[in-house]
């Protein structure tokens, strides 16, 4: 009774099911708002993330067979206090874990034909999944270091730069050119010559996240935390290496000449919830900058807090 129970397995025919268990066309894919939003009469919107709810789908099965109708009703009763997996076949096969929160009412509309209307499937947070969402192109959303408004022409940090002399700087993540001043996606937090244990942290509601650190000779070594748990130990922002990392972390260094240019940290296998991502400074000088070419020596301890992309 959990994520291994799939309402509509993609290999349903091989499993001996006589009828396609997928719901009928025409259901909406509703995302949860999760935001408290207030707007002064003549002011801009101000939002805060206050929830960790997932998607909800009002599902229906039109003219399906008796076995499918009874399967849906059985899933409703079986998982009233738990959750099961629903696969959205038209959304890249993305998995959702949740349960029916309204009763699916099966009606025999003709001989052997059954119709179910109004079965509301709701995703529940903090639940394990067989396959965590990983379609960054469609389901990844930016979480910038600064907000979009640039009140008074200056950037406002969204990240809590709590300890250390963090400043905002700009980096051309596209790899070339000078970033536009009012482009919030280009801003990073920079802690030059930091003290050990300086830290900054941000928060999002969703599944996994990824963040891409630029690599440079002046950069040092940081630790990365997810929800207070160290997931990357001693990530060297000179060359993208680390001492150790959690099994859920995928580190990917972008090669470059004369030295690697970026290290991407991707964490996919975490359930839906409010998550905290923290960069903590170790104070250690970065190691060898480039593998072979000059200059090769590490030279600084500067820490970077780049923008995130989070999965929802």
């Amino acid at each position, binding site marked *: 009774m959990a994520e291994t129970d799939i309402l509509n397995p993609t290999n349903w025919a091989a499993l001996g099911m006589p009828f396609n268990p997928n719901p009928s066309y025409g259901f909406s894919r509703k995302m949860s708002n999760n935001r*408290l939003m207030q707007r002064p009469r003549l002011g*801009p*919107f*101000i*939002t*805060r*993330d*206050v929830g*960790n709810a997932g998607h909800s789908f009002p599902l229906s099965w039109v003219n399906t067979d008796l076995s499918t109708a009874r399967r849906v009703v059985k899933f409703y009763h079986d998982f009233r206090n738990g959750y099961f997996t629903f696969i959205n076949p038209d959304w890249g096969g993305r998995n959702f874990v949740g349960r029916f929160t309204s009763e699916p009412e099966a009606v025999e509309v003709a001989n052997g034909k059954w119709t179910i209307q109004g079965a509301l499937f709701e995703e529940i947070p*903090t639940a394990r999944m067989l396959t965590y969402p990983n379609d960054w192109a469609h389901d990844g959303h930016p979480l910038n270091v*600064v*907000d*979009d*408004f640039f*009140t008074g022409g200056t950037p*406002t*940090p*969204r*990240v*809590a*730069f*709590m*300890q250390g002399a*963090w400043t905002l700087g700009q980096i051309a993540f596209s790899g070339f050119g000078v970033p536009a001043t009012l482009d919030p996606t280009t801003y990073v937090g920079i802690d030059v010559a930091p003290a050990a244990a300086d830290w900054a*942290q*941000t*928060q*999002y*509601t969703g599944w996994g996240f990824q963040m891409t650190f630029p690599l440079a000779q002046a950069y040092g070594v940081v630790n990365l935390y997810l*929800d*207070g748990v160290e997931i990357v130990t001693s990530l060297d922002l000179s060359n993208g290496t680390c001492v150790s990392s959690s099994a859920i972390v995928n580190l990917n260094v972008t090669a470059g000449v004369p030295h690697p240019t970026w290290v991407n940290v991707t964490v996919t296998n975490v359930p839906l*919830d*409010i998550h*905290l991502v923290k960069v903590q400074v170790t104070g250690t000088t970065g190691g060898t900058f480039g593998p072979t070419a000059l200059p090769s020596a590490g030279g600084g301890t500067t820490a970077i807090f780049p923008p995130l992309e989070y999965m929802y």
Partner: protein
Amino acid sequence: MAQTFPAAVKARLAASGGGAAVSLLEVYTVSGSYFAWSDSDITAQGMLPVPLTVHSGSVYTTTWHYVTPTFLPWLLSAGPFKTFNNTTTSTGQVVVQNLSGDTVRRDVSRLFSSNAIVGALVYFRTWLADAEFATFSFFGSVSDVELEADGSSMTLQLESMCAWAKLDAPYQEIGISCPLSFGSVECGSTSSTPCDNSYGSCTSTERFKGVLVEWVGAAVSTVQYVQPAPLVLSNPRVTG
């Protein structure tokens, strides 16, 4: 009380978006049980010290230390909290779920039955999780508990420390007459002649508890002069 936020917190709060604060509630009961509840499944530094007993050989030593609990996501609602800029006691209210647990005794009911919740120390914070900073703190105790009849939730009424109205002073008239009963333990007189509560008739003057308003001579006179009763009586049981 005015609170100055660090610049980093102010900068974080100025952003148009971001995470909202969560509620953290710690409870330390009279019987020594520690609970940490929140409306989110979150780990944070605790603010109430809890005892830690270690033993070396036959010597047991108890010290107080702070823990970093994982707060149970049981808080249904927190507030309103009412604070004042005078000596009126600040109050608050929190509601805790009571559904989980075994079918005989549910989680919170069990706590309620096994711990004296009333009088327990509480520390409540609205907690900016990313900044790891409390924008509001409430330190006090549980003054009242209400359990829903169906056992679905428990409501704790809180009051702050410095609840002056709850101070119990001994009942005592302050005046020129001694308030003690003649011959009582507090009086200590063994005389066979009862007094009339005046200093003049006191046979246990070292314990006389009235106010001496005037005396003559180097030594305290045993002669009490008649004085009018004071116009204003101070009573410590009444809030200033």
